[in-house]
């Protein structure tokens, strides 16, 4: 039984570091393995939605995300990472979902993507969630429980919290007390869970600055040929040294 599990782990993670795991870690794995997975995305689907997986041909890309994962998850207490940018269409969602996917490579860790982009967010499309309740529904409707807004992603150990259908972008959702209680609950649902917030642009939106209250680290995505040094410095000032983990240069041209 254990042999089969090991093989399965090796197959999905590909990092084969199983024997170094201690007893605590093994219990995490067992706990995590209980996570419900009704449907797993095929490689074609992952490719289509530009989600990395260990066997991806572009190993450089996979390795770069592994490195980001390593440096961003070094301190387990700082497990809420907000990904933001200076302008729209900077590749924040791409980076956020792949950072989450790379964290989920590790059998002892779970990741969750929180889509804070309002109605513009694409998380529900990428992970084929459809019109299911999300953050806005949780805040507007008291009947909805935390379990109702967390959805499967189709990737092992990766969960998705979409924005939801009700409410508008300007409804001060992220400063609502229920949003804070939601964040606290999901943070503590699993002991080694990493939450990646897919946030709107920091200089354009007040939401991103509000979201900084609930996050532990901030990553700034700088896309190819889009931002000037003044903008980057302004963004770095807004984020502040305490939470700013660093900038990511996104070479993807779109």
């Amino acid at each position, binding site marked *: 039984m254990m042999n089969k599990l090991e093989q399965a782990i090796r197959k999905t993670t590909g990092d084969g570091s199983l024997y170094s795991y201690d007893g605590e870690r093994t219990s995490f794995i067992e706990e995590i393995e209980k996570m419900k997975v009704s449907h797993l995305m095929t490689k074609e689907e992952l*490719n*289509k939605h*530009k989600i*990395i997986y260990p066997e991806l041909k*572009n190993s*450089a*890309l996979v390795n*770069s*995300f592994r*490195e*980001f994962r390593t*440096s*961003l998850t070094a301190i387990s207490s700082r497990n809420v990472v907000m990904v933001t940018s200076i302008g729209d269409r900077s*590749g924040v969602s*791409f*980076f956020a979902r*792949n950072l989450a996917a790379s964290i989920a490579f590790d059998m002892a860790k779970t990741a969750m993507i929180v889509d804070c982009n309002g109605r513009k967010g694409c998380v529900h499309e990428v992970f084929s969630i459809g019109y299911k309740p999300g953050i806005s529904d949780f805040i507007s409707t008291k009947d909805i429980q935390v379990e109702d807004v967390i959805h499967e992603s189709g990737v092992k150990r990766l969960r998705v919290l979409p924005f939801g259908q009700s409410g508008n972008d300007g409804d001060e959702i992220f400063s609502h007390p229920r949003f804070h209680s939601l964040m606290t609950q999901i943070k503590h649902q699993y002991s080694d869970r990493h939450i990646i917030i897919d946030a709107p642009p920091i200089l354009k939106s007040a939401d991103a600055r509000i979201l900084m209250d609930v996050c532990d680290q901030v*990553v700034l995505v*700088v896309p*190819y*040929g*889009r*931002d*000037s*040094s003044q903008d*980057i*410095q302004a963004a*770095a000032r807004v984020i502040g040294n305490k939470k*700013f*983990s*660093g*900038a*990511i*240069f*996104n*070479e*993807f*041209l779109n």
Partner: protein
Amino acid sequence: MITNPLDLVVITFKDTWKRKELGILMFISLSIFVLFVSWNWPKMYVSSSIIEVDEQNILTPLLEGSAIATSIKNHARNAEQIVFNKYAMNYIFDILQEDVETLSDKQKEDYWEDIRDNTSVENTGSNLIRISYKSVDPVRAQLLAENLTNLFISESVNEKKRESENAYSFIARQAGDYHEKLLKSENALKEFRSNNLGADPASSAVVNDRILELQRSIEQSGLAINEAQIRMENIDAQLSGEAEVSAHLSREGQIQERISVLQTKLDMLRMTYLDTYPDIIIIKDQIESLKTTMSNIGKDETYKISQNQGGQLNPLFQELRAKRSQFKTELAALKTRVKETRQLLGDEKSRARQINNAVAVYAQLTRDYDGNQALYRKLLKQRESARVSMNIDIANQGMTLQIKEQAIVPVRPVGLQFIHFAIFGLVGSLLTPFGLSFLMASIDGRYKSEQALKTMNGLPVLGGVSAYRNKSMNIVDVSWLAFIALIFVVVVAMYGYVGWLKVLGQA
């Protein structure tokens, strides 16, 4: 923001790919524009002739020094002046009569301006001139090039003739002027000479000698006068000590004796001098006065008494008196001579002054004459040289203009050909999007590489993310590449087709 040159190249390509739609549009529009221009580009034909200017012909060494070869230094400029002047205009208009006759004066001017613009005259070697005419019509190019060449040759020869004729007539005129001047100074010299005979440097020396001689004579006479005066004083002293009368010497006898002595002396003097000589006159006077005294003796009582008393005159006294009288005469003669000599000296001195003035005037006249003569001689020589030069030019031997290359009807057009347009159009429009990307990347302050981002002060950089390429993206990119290739092929085919049409048109 670019940190190194290699990045710039990579970024140029990336940016061009990013803006490929704009790049394709640019390539299509530019290449089609160039194709359009090349289709409408007029074919220009140039016909030219080359003229050799030979100034070193056989006559030059033969006539070295005696004839001055007229030269045309800047041939092309000279040729330009000839082929662009009013005469040339009329000459060319005569040839192009059909084109010109319906034009107004203003139009004619423009027409001529157009011809001038299309004509080019240049030095192609030290003594080669190329005259070319550019036109869309090859026959017209040849016609004008040929006629402008002929015009240049005939006008050059005429101009040289005119030039040497002018030079000759100028020198001849100058020679005439100097001839007249020479005659004038010759006459002035002749006249002066005849008016001032003996007024030459030689006679000046003679006069000086004469002055010296006269001065010496005056000095000698002065000495003689002094001597005579001293003698007179001595005799006067002796006379005062002697008694006037001595015994038994009758006064009459004494006078008689004295007269005879004087007579003898007079006779002696007359043998040498004329009666006007002062000594003769004085002696004559003395004789006359003695004779008067003689005749008075008979009447004089006092004398009779003394004679009767038998007293005689003292002979020494008599002698001294005679001597005194002689010296007195000599003294008078000397003084007269000094006076006359002084007068002569005055005359000679004024004559010497006259001679000096005359010599100065003479020297000036001679100088004028010599100067004029030298210039006249030189001009005569130059006039002969000019005459020979003129004759050389009249005989067309001074400068030969030979057509080395006759203007022919050009077959191939000049200037930009279709192939140039094709290369420029295809390469240029292909490179333009890259060039623009390069320019923009050079001045763009935004970040286009991870390395550049890392250079920003105080910014922690976690790393870079490369593109996630999936199948659909690859399909899109490959489609784009295929589309670009297709467009390129279509454009090249269009160029090929137009080039083919051009070749057919030429054939």
